[in-house]
């Protein structure tokens, strides 16, 4: 399962970077979406996968839990990262929309005025 997920993470990163390198700003934003999801999936994979064990500690359990329990912290991190990523990407979508209205082109090459 880890191998499969690792491959998926790799493919996501590769696709994201490919899309970010394109000239179209729409593809750029899709690339950013994929990149943030790739990072989330990477946290999930690298913090260890636990099968059939929810991150729940039974009521009344002692400090040391018997049996296998999934790590809840990794999932909390991903949840936080998803929320943050969602907010930031919503901003990015509005930004490219406004940029398209102002520049009238879906092309990074038309946006070089501030470059040096």
């Amino acid at each position, binding site marked *: 399962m880890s191998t499969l997920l690792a491959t998926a993470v790799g493919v996501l990163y590769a696709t994201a970077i490919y899309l970010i390198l394109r000239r179209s700003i729409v593809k750029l934003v899709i690339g950013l979406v994929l990149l943030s999801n790739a990072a989330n999936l990477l946290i999930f994979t690298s913090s260890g996968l636990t099968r059939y064990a929810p991150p729940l500690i039974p009521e009344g359990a002692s400090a040391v839990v018997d049996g296998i329990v999934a790590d809840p912290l990794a999932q909390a991190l991903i949840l936080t990262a998803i929320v943050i990523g969602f907010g930031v990407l919503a901003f*990015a979508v509005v930004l490219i929309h406004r940029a398209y209205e102002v520049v009238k082109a879906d092309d990074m090459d038309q946006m070089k005025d*501030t470059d040096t």
Partner: protein
Amino acid sequence: MNSAVALQTTLPILIPLIAGALSLVVWRSRQLQRGISVLGTGALLLASIWLLLSVYDNGIQVMYAGNWPAPFGIVLVADLLSSIMVLLTGITGLATAVYSLATISKKHEHYGYYPLMHLLLAGVNGAFLTGDIFNLYVWFEVMLVASFALLILGGERAQMEGAIKYVTLNLVSSAIFLSAIGLLYGLTGTLNMADLAVKLAEHQDNPMVQVVAMLFLMAFGIKAGAFPLFFWLPASYHTPRVAVSSLFAGLLTKVGVYALFRVFTLIFPLGDSLIRDLLLAMAGATMLVGVLGAAAQFEFRRILSFHIISQIGYMLMGLALYTPLAIIGGVFYIIHHIIVKSNLFLISGLVYRLQGSYDLKQLGGVWRSHPMIAVLFLIPALSLAGLPPLSGFFGKFIVIKAGVEAQHWWLVGIALLVGLLTLYSMIKIWAEVFWKAMPEGATAPAQQRGGTGLMVLTIVALATLTVLIGVAAEPVYKLAEYTAAQLLDSQSYIQSVMGVR
């Protein structure tokens, strides 16, 4: 944990958050928002002075959120470096708030300028104070979202173009940072920085540690604007309002530098690693490329933006040399740089107010019409170039002396050459804007609004600070010395956070 410590460490985050929330509540009233912005940043400055004094007297202060013991809960840790950075944030914040009163138009205020400014300050302070690596990521994002919105406030074409590059590269940096955190968590099972330092000491030989350290270097390198990752900075920093530029120039890249200092002294101590060689090379290239970029520019704020990059190189040099003296120099340089750089941007705004342009070719004759402003420009400009007895001289001197002691001759050579080229660049601005006669057919001055007095007031205050750091360099040096000692002695940080076992 006593309540004074809890208050000291959280106030620098809480005050801007509360001020921001209050400005949202009084959204319709311009006057109240302006009042809150000055009061809020003023209170922030006082709180940060209180924090620094307390950390100076009592050592590292730790706040355990919700009273969870160290590796489990989130901690806020104020050591000397954090509290110095928080103090500098307070100073820049107050200066920007006062300056904004005179320069931010009604339109921009209605777009929510003040709440965003407070949110940015909260994010910056949170990043400085947190002792948890994932929490650092969260504060980075808080800061970034606020900076995105501030950058495009007004919606001009140049702002949109600059913002796309700024947003893209900073989001890529965040993704790299997040990936690094994920791998680090998989490796050690902890996120607390002090605990990470302990756990990673057992993983010395694991090649994965190098990979993660390299990812952190890339992520923070982008934020700090280090070579070759800086291209978002000169493309965007000259596009927003001057007050925003000044706030960004003073604080945002320095958050990246702070993160580099923190991560590479505490979590991955540099020692004689590949990363250190890489950082040394990056420092040299950053200094040189930044200053050469500035030499080619003829727009006031673009020149200053490129100089941010070259100055970052000096701070990185201080970190990369990794001797006690070099770290002292790096810290001293950060203190000097934040104040001087913000001030130079504020002056560019004042010149714009007087003559209606940022283009050096369109400007001229300020010396004749406003000699006092010309002198006010010279103080931070010469300080940036490193002329004694101003603050920049001591910063450069300490870093370069550390370089000589470590016998990194080529780096010392670059640092000296870059100092000279910085002087050239500042003289170019001086000659074009202040000395030469007003060019024929120059654009008419922008419409005169009141408030130049407030602008001059903030510039004078910051210039005075620059002179004070230069004249009273010894106490500042002492402070930097203690800071460097604290940074290099990671055991004391770990013990303060984890408790003595």
